């Protein structure tokens, strides 16, 4: 009995010590990086002032409301580009994922490794770099924004689709092969129906993410809604800039809500 209590105490002490050590190292890491970055913790108190600033300056006025048609048009273009980049990337990524998946893909290991490596490079090269390189060659137009989003989406979706397809049971493929089904029949009749739900969910997530990233790409490449925000913001037209933020937020929340609704229907 006594021994057991001691054991329990030791157990809890070890657990608490571990928690304490994790918290302590987090705190030290925080202090270290904060002093490296020259970040003052008390500026966290300034969060309220930021909101107050937004509430007073970002309120759309009469003048900014007259800009609404132009803003909505750019929002519509951004929406379209976000959708088409995700869709095109989805089609290409699906074909590459079919080849790159371990269970039904190419039997040559090298091909699979190359596809995964390609996806990893596309994903990890920062979007800033893609935007800059593409801007240099494709100039300042919607196409540049589309390509930057397409490349990022491709890198992300290849990995997501490969993981989704690899969840598909390899034994089923074997069984179908035994019945004499061709590769095409296996993909269309067995794999596609099973992976269609997660694939649609990934696509919707990508579209939602694209609206946010499109703003950034627009800032960097001087196109679309991001450019409009930059223009108004640097021109001190805060009312109009606030309107841009508002319409972006409404669109993102709208997509998030419809995505979760669609997700519930198809789940």
């Amino acid at each position, binding site marked *: 009995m006594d021994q057991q209590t001691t054991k329990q105490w030791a157990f809890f002490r070890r657990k608490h010590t571990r928690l304490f050590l994790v918290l302590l190292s987090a705190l030290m890491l925080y202090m270290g990086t904060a002093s490296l970055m020259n970040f003052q913790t008390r500026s966290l108190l300034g969060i309220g002032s*930021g909101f107050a600033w937004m509430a007073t300056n970002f309120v759309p006025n009469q003048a900014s409301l007259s800009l609404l048609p132009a803003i909505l048009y750019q929002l519509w273009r951004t929406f379209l580009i976000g959708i088409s980049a995700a869709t095109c990337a989805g089609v290409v990524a699906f074909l590459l994922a079919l080849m790159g998946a371990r269970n039904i893909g190419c039997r040559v290991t090298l091909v699979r490794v190359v596809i995964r490596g390609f996806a990893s490079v596309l994903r990890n090269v920062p979007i800033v770099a893609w935007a800059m390189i593409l801007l240099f*060659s494709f100039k300042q137009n919607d196409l540049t924004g589309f390509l930057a989003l397409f490349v990022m989406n491709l890198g992300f979706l290849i990995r997501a689709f490969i993981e989704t397809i690899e969840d598909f049971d390899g034994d089923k493929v074997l069984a179908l092969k035994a019945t004499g089904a061709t590769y095409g029949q296996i993909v269309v009749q067995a794999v596609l129906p099973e992976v269609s739900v997660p694939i649609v969910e990934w696509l919707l997530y990508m579209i939602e993410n694209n609206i946010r990233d499109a703003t950034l790409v627009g800032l960097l490449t001087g196109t679309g809604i991001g450019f409009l925000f930059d223009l108004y913001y640097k021109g001190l037209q805060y009312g109009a800039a606030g309107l841009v933020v508002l319409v*972006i937020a409404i669109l993102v929340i709208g997509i998030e809500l419809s995505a979760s609704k669609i997700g519930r229907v198809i789940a």
Partner: protein
Amino acid sequence: MIEQSNKPVSLRPTVAASLHRRTGIHDRRKITISLLLTSLLILTGYTLTTLAPAHFRWGAAVASFVDNVRVMMISPSLGNDTWSQLMAAMGETVGLAILTTLIGAGGGFVMALLSADNLAPKAVASVVKAILAWIRAVPTILWVLIYSVSLGLGPNAAVIGISFHSVAYLGKVYANSLEAIPAASIEALKASGAGLFPILCQAVLPVAAARLLSWTFIRFEINFADAVVVGAAAGAGGIGYQLFTASNFYFDFHEVGLLIYLILGFAIIAELVAVKLRAKFMD
């Protein structure tokens, strides 16, 4: 045959009914997916025809793009900077990513406690969830720009801007992880008179720790990318700013290549470390 004889006869109509219902759901699912995909394809087709400006010279654009990528990949060089400058810039960006992830994790955990359905009162949970959704809906870069006006340019605006998004993002995914803990086990502890802290330390953390940790690592990767972006688009310094000046001011694709290699190298190391740490904490 054998299976059928084992089942009670009375069950069979129910099975048939549920099968019928399931095909109904199956049809609705199929219709939703095909409707969605069709509309996505139509919108994409329309967009693709209107994307390129009139008389766009595809050949020249693609050729120059391939050429630039080749220059970057094959002959990276230092350009106008020194190694120590680049390493300092890299350190700044990594520091920004670590700092914002820590603030995001701390703030996000508090937000998750306030918005998890099984821990917080319903009214509080729905209000906090709505606020977090609004913060997430505004792109990170806009938060940074907004705070760089209200707080002044410098590291504070960058840290707070990225942290904001991290808190909102981690608040949501942490809450989802916490909601996976059965409400009954928390209720039981509450009924036995345990306070908030014992419940957290003994019931919530042990179950959810691994998942919370892996989300934190995912957010660190996002924050690193965001830190690069913020340096480029908001002039907040770091490797992103170097990238921006190298490509936009000096048009030096050799240096852009080197910077991309540096960033790729760090991202791959971070991914490996994350995998190792996750494996260690999982057991």
